[in-house]
């Protein structure tokens, strides 16, 4: 099991996800500088959270043009698992591996808090260890997490079973009140067609032990790493 974490200038959750991967995998992932055009052999590529290039143009837009991203996209199309968390999700939409876009939060403010999400399906590489009908508590920390796609695309995504996680209440009910950022259909995470590429707004890497306020993020990495080993 070989994991690589791509580091862009302005990434700031690269260490956090590396720590989480190592805690579950027992081995540190490779940290890959964005300027490298060659990608080490990897079973899993992670695009971490942060503010790549300051997110001054559009969140994730500049990172999508990094030399390494061409290789990442090619690997993804060949079936390598690619996980984009927060800014990584934004990058995945910018390079077209995932449809839609992440707009400014409906409140127009940065939001950092724990939210609840529910796995839309639990037969995937990432969500195998989550119960189908229970809320999972994970933190969000973003200003641009408001998922948008047109109705037709959303219908298609739902039809193809590509919604990964939805914001819900602590009782697992998917309601407008439980939606922290205005995302269409409460979407918090989205798969590509193969369900091996995942874009996810919440940060499971921040919730892997009791001392950090909870461990609901740990099964996410356990499922992923078990599935790839």
């Amino acid at each position: 099991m070989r994991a690589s974490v791509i580091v862009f200038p302005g990434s700031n959750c690269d260490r956090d996800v590396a720590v989480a991967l190592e805690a579950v995998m027992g081995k540190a992932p490779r940290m890959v500088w964005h300027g490298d055009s060659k990608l080490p052999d990897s079973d899993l590529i992670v695009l971490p959270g942060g503010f790549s290039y300051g997110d001054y143009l559009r969140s994730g837009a500049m990172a999508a043009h990094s030399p390494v991203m061409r290789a990442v996209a090619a690997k993804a199309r060949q079936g390598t698992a690619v996980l984009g968390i927060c800014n990584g999700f934004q990058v995945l939409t910018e390079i077209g591996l995932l449809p839609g876009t992440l707009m400014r939060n409906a409140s127009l403010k940065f939001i950092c808090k724990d939210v609840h999400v529910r796995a839309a399906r639990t037969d995937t590489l990432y969500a195998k260890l989550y119960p189908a009908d229970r809320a999972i508590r994970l933190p969000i920390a973003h200003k641009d997490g408001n998922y948008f796609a047109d109705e037709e695309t959303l219908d298609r995504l739902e039809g193809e079973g590509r919604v990964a996680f939805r914001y819900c209440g602590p009782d697992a009910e998917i309601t407008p009140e439980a939606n922290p950022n205005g995302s269409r259909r409460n979407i918090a995470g989205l798969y590509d067609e193969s369900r091996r590429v995942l874009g996810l707004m919440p940060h499971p890497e921040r919730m892997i032990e009791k001392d950090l306020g909870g461990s609901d993020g740990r099964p996410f990495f356990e499922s992923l790493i078990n599935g790839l080993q």
Partner: protein
Amino acid sequence: MTADSPEKTQAAPSAAKIAEHGIKPDEYLRLVELLGRHPNPTELGIFSVMWSEHCSYKSSRVWLKQLPTTGPQVIQGPGENAGVVDLGDGLAAIFKMESHNHPSYIEPHQGAATGVGGIMRDVFTMGARPVANLNALRFGAPDHPKTRHLVAGVVGGIGDYGNAIGVPTVGGETNFDARYNNNILVNAMCVGIAPTGRIFYSAAAGAGNPVVYVGSKTGRDGIHGATMASAEFDDASAEKRPTVQVGDPFAEKLLLEACLELMQEDAIIAIQDMGAAGLTSSSVEMASKGGVGIALNLDHVPQRETGMNAYEMMLSESQERMLMVLRPGSEPLAAAIFKKWELDFAVIGETTETGRLQVSHRGVLEADIPIPALADEAPVYERPYQLRKPLPLIGADEVPAANSATEALLKLMGSPHLSSRRWIWEQYDHMVMADTVERPGGDAAIVRVHGTKKGLALTCDVTPRYCFADPFEGGRQAIVESWRNLTATGADPLAVTDCLNFGNPERPEIMGEFVGCIQGMAESCRALAFPVVSGNVSLYNETNGVAIPPTPGIGAIGLIPDLAARASIGFEPGQTIVLLGAASGHLGQSIYQLIATGAFNGAPPPVDLDAEKRAGDLVRMLIRLGLCHTVHDVSDGGLLVALAEMALAGNTGFELTAAPADLPLHALYFGEDQGRYLLGVDADAAAAIVARAGAAGVPARIIGVTGGDRIALPGEDPLPLARLRGEHEAWFPRYFGER
């Protein structure tokens, strides 16, 4: 140096020019004497910033010496970019708090953002990776027409900077008071961690060593920021917007990573961030501390704008820049690292044996000043001061009792003074770096020392209304409250950074406030072995002759040796509630007094340092022994507010047993007596804890039990927690029209 020296025959600047630079007539005479001639315009600009209150501490310096600054834990006290304390196992905490008040009032978003950027640079300049930010904010009355805009701007600016750079903002405090209407305070604190063997200092050394500029390019922003920060405001202050710098957190993130990468190598002799007074103060400070001279060639300074002259470049406060003295020969290695991070890197000068600051530009020697004239020989004042007469003690009978303590509690908890600050801290990423163990909202935030079982407890405190009523008592109280907040988490308090915000020191009553606060702080620091290791002074916080209340902000850190033994404030069901410390029902200067009478009056609650120490040491021991993990100190709002906060944090109600008859109820419930803690303990351990307290000389009594979802006071209808929570959480969203 091939350029010609500034002429001995340099004409004197006009009196208006001198005044415009904030230099007083007698100071100008001193300048000419030290320089041996009149200064040219660039030199006048350099003197103006270096002799400004902000850079020279000329009014405060003689008094700051009274603060204790040493202890076995102290690696570096005041005088460097930040203070350094030992955490054991080869690690040190590096931390400081700094004000960005004037710019934040004029342009709240950028002013606050660059305040965060500046304090982080102070910390990573010394080799530390920043691990936590905190901030202490004081705004005017909520109904003042500018307040809403200022709160939103400042909070947004702090968030935008800290969130992007990826350092968690874990705590702080926010007050509202009409006396800050025209002078808000934005004090930012940063804490970093470095290996004790790799701490970097700012003293240059040697001659002929390269002086290197790294980071962002220099523009015309922020020229005269330090001078602005050393003057009062008047009605025309909004016109000073061009003197506010603009922040770029992305550039800072790159600068942080590049500096830390270079610090792995043996290349840096000295390093100093370019903060207030930019290139001028960074080069002068490095030269002054090292007892060397420095020669700069401004032709090599990376510039963002064309046609900048020496005056502008020397005084620019463009952000995200650093100055370093490197070991000769290490330039290529250093340049490669900064190139990787896509930052400018330029050799702009060298250290010299002249003891002078020599600045050339386009072949002209634009400044040639003896370094001591800008540093050690800068003016120092022993300003006249007038201490305030203590105010009378207010008896409980002078403050009306509430008809219902429950209703009074709701009112307090829903007021701007005590309402939840969630609206603020949810705009800050307080979890990035994945080591935040105690999030905002408790007594102190706790950040794990990465990769260890140790924790750093962090807090910001001061009660400005106490300081106004009695500067000495207020100064004492600010220190003990921070010490108490650290203690309540189970931490050993280590050291303090201070951010001293006052009005115009040329007025004896303001200078008296300063002196009183310093003396009070010094007494508490000595009694608690809690040294001050870094700090900042911000004077002239007044507009049209109206000063802010004295606000000596305290940032403090403590060490939790093992996170397994720590405490937080949330009640758990089935606990017995123990109150430690004596209750005398002091209502003077209390929030209850404000709500009940419309004003703060009388003396603030007195601090008993011996009692504080006894109670704090007991609490820490109980936490370490595993006898207690639910602790909250009693401060603003008094006993009932503290209990309510514990109930909300743990989502667990409580019932108070019959109140003792020795105090009027409103004084018992809402008095702000110092030196007190509330504990939630196992029922079967309660008696033993009370006994231990007795043995330690700490008054203790069992006052109730926890459980359920309501707050039950003797003789009153129970208050559902949901209703209390609704009131407590509503103020900020309502204020911003969000509900």
